[in-house]
């Protein structure tokens, strides 16, 4: 197994894990955990192709990872702020309870 294939496998399994969390969890914060895992899996792909792919003098992969990390942080911050607001409204972070528009 080449290093590239190994990293890609890890990344796809991580992505699967994250997807599983997003699909099965009910707590909104834990769904965010799954989202972070998925983003992370994508980042691994970028780095793997930069490191074990053809030479990349423009550093496209690492640059994309940098932006992706920044956006992931922003996403987490906004997501958690929204969850906190929802929690203040309904006293719960269970997404199944958010079934009415008229809070």
């Amino acid at each position, binding site marked *: 197994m080449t290093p590239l294939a190994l990293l890609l496998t890890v990344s796809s399994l991580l992505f699967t894990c*994250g997807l599983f969390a997003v699909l099965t969890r009910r707590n909104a914060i834990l769904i965010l955990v799954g989202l972070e895992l998925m983003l992370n899996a994508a980042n691994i792909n970028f780095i793997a192709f930069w490191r074990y792919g053809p030479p990349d003098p423009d550093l496209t992969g690492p640059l994309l990872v940098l932006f992706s990390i920044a956006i992931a942080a922003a996403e987490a911050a906004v997501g958690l702020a929204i969850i906190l607001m929802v929690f203040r409204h309904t006293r719960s972070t269970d997404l199944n309870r958010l079934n009415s528009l008229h809070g």
Partner: protein
Amino acid sequence: MIPLIPLLILSPLILLAALGAVWNARPVHAALLLALALALTAGLYLTIGADFIGLVQFMVYVGAVAVLIVFSLLITRPGDEAEELARRPGAAVSGLACVLPVATVLLYAVSHTPDLSSGASESPTLPLQTLGKALFTDYAPAVLAVGVLLTAVMVGAVLFARDPDKKPPTPPGP
């Protein structure tokens, strides 16, 4: 094969931590395991030569995102553990049913990825100067966009997190 050894050690650990994050019934444990998975990923980056990315990943994910998640878990007092355990089997079945096709497709694609590593250099390092120059020349619009995004996020988070019913804090009288 020697450069493969750290990867072979780290990869299963990352996957185990991620599985824990996904499947642990206690939300705080799940969040801590997420932090572990992200930290191990940072270690993975460090071992394959992307030092800068690894450290940034560690700083942002472990120091900020994981801590933020953990903190909001504390504030929101997550629900009943027993309830979560009770609905697990069904959730597992339906979740796997959805996820397995995705995993199959992904792994199939990976197994058909051509070996590109013939053209790769033995141990490339991340040249910081190039990275910085690229960020402020070719990628300057993107950097600006991210800056605007982060500012918007900060303002938005402050607005969201503000308690609407609360009066503005009065100066503390003694």
